[in-house]
């Protein structure tokens, strides 16, 4: 009886490990395949059975990418975009979160609800007028034109309010006030140091979302010199006779930095994304 039960138990374990292994393989296979194809000539796609080992065209394929798109310029543009957007969103969100968590003022609840409601507006609704505004102010093909829309981040205010009201004690603020600290000084020297972990969480969320966003960047940036990496990569696939080795090389080198950063900080990464959605 007990051996039958043990058998069933170990069968269950085998099934679970098997299922996890299969899903994990499917999850990481495209990363490996990306690398293989980035090192092979385009013709490798026609080989049967399919090529599964790296070849020797790593450099040539990447040179083809460099000839087609301003790869490093685009990567730099994306980097600048993400850093500026993240810093601005952190500043706006923490200030507003501080106000909503620790101050009393008329209309507080209504205004906070209004911020939450703005989350429902889909970005496509404003797409055309935003494009019109950006072109009116001659910001097409500029990073500033892209950024300005990403500065709007209601989720950030929500997260910061939660974090500040849970982790900054009222007594600390009261004490600082009795010492004659101004509100901004309290924010800078008391609130900011306490909420640094929340900055990491929100920063990761905003940075990755900005990095991967496509529709708006694709709409605003038409001049190759202004391309971000997403727009540049998408332009690799717009000719009829696509060089697959080149496309995969571009994708591989653009994805590699993300994979390295993720593997280094995967726990922080995963917990940030979870907190951002579940809170």
């Amino acid at each position, binding site marked *: 009886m007990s051996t039958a039960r043990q058998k069933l138990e170990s069968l*269950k374990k085998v099934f*679970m490990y098997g*299922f*996890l292994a299969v*899903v*994990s393989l499917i*999850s990481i296979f*495209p*990363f490996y*395949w990306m690398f293989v194809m980035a090192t092979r000539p385009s013709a490798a*796609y*026609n080989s049967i059975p399919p090529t599964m080992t790296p070849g020797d065209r790593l450099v040539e394929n990447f040179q083809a990418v460099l000839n087609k798109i301003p790869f490093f310029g685009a990567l730099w543009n994306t980097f600048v975009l993400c850093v500026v957007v993240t810093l601005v969103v952190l*500043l*706006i969100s923490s200030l*507003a979160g*501080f*106000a*909503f968590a620790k*101050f*009393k*003022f008329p209309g*507080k609840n209504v205004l906070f609800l209004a911020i939450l409601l*703005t989350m429902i*507006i889909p*970005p*496509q*609704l*404003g797409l*055309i*007028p935003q*494009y*019109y*505004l950006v072109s009116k102010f001659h910001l097409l093909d500029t990073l500033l034109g892209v950024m*300005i829309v990403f500065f*709007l981040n209601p989720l950030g205010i929500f997260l910061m309010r939660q974090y500040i009201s849970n982790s900054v004690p009222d007594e600390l603020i009261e004490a600082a006030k009795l010492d004659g600290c101004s*509100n901004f000084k309290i924010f800078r020297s008391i609130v900011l140091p306490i909420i640094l972990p929340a900055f990491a969480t929100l920063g990761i969320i905003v940075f*990755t979302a900005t990095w*991967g966003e*496509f529709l708006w960047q694709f*709409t605003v940036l038409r001049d190759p010199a202004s391309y971000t990496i*997403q727009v540049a*990569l*998408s332009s*690799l*696939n*717009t000719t009829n006779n696509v060089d697959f080795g080149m*496309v*995969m090389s*571009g*994708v591989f080198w*653009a994805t590699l930095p993300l*994979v390295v950063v*993720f593997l280094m900080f*995967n*726990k922080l990464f*995963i917990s940030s*994304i*979870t907190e951002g*959605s*579940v809170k």
Partner: protein
Amino acid sequence: MWKRKYRSEEQKDKISAYLYISPFFIIFAIIGLYPAIFSLYLAFQRWNGLGEMEFVGLRNFTIVLQDPVFWKSVYNTIVMGLMGTAPQLVVGIILAFILNQTYLKFKNTFRAMIFMPYITSMVAVALVFGVFFSNNETALANYVLNIFGLDPVSWKTSEWGAKIAISIMVFWRWVGYNTIIYLAGLQSIPKSLYEAARIDGANILQQLRYITIPLLKPFIILTVFFSTVGALQLFTEPTVFLGNAAFSRTEAMTIVMYLYRDAFNLQSFGTASATAIILLALIIIFSAINTYLSSGLGKKERRAKS
């Protein structure tokens, strides 16, 4: 004297508070509220983006609603939304359930691998899967089909080929994300509940049905809501996957692609704005229905129990 000073302190706090929340509202007014209202206005105008606007009443809406391509895009969006997101719910819960087992080894490694697709950008995913699902008979996807004795599919130009390929890439990128959210939910369920159920003789399926699903419900509702909204906004994957055929073929054209094509390829900003408003309505309707349906999940069981 003392009282007056106190009051002015309160006044100061109010001013600070309004000052601190003002950046959000200023930016919102310029790039959130104004564009939303402008869209609403544009939906009733005829405008090519340059010349004079002309009031046309509801004509933009009738043009869009009578356009078979629009309905095709609605159909495509719903079909790909269902195929791309519904299986995630099931697979995500199973994966989270397994990852939550106490005896499981290499938990963090499995978790990181399953989550990894989420860090790739949608553009990268669409390009990689675009090669995997190329039209060539020798494409890797066709090679796999061949192993099972099936005929090759021209993935980018066939009605179901394109939809299936796009659904698969959506599934691949998001299933790990949903798994992680369910896992967070599972970790909030006390282990003693399962022990008590096991003592009462409940098997693993019963545990899943009477403990896991009901207590996971808020997390399921959350992911269903996100998935619904995200699915209706599908744009990047099909656009990049189809490359320069994206706006000239209709096998995988989504509502947002239809909107984009109207605005930026056909310079018809009025009908594009009308489409945006129809899209907003669809998002509200579908997310309400799906949230309602998923919040009904597991209700019967609980009533039967109590």
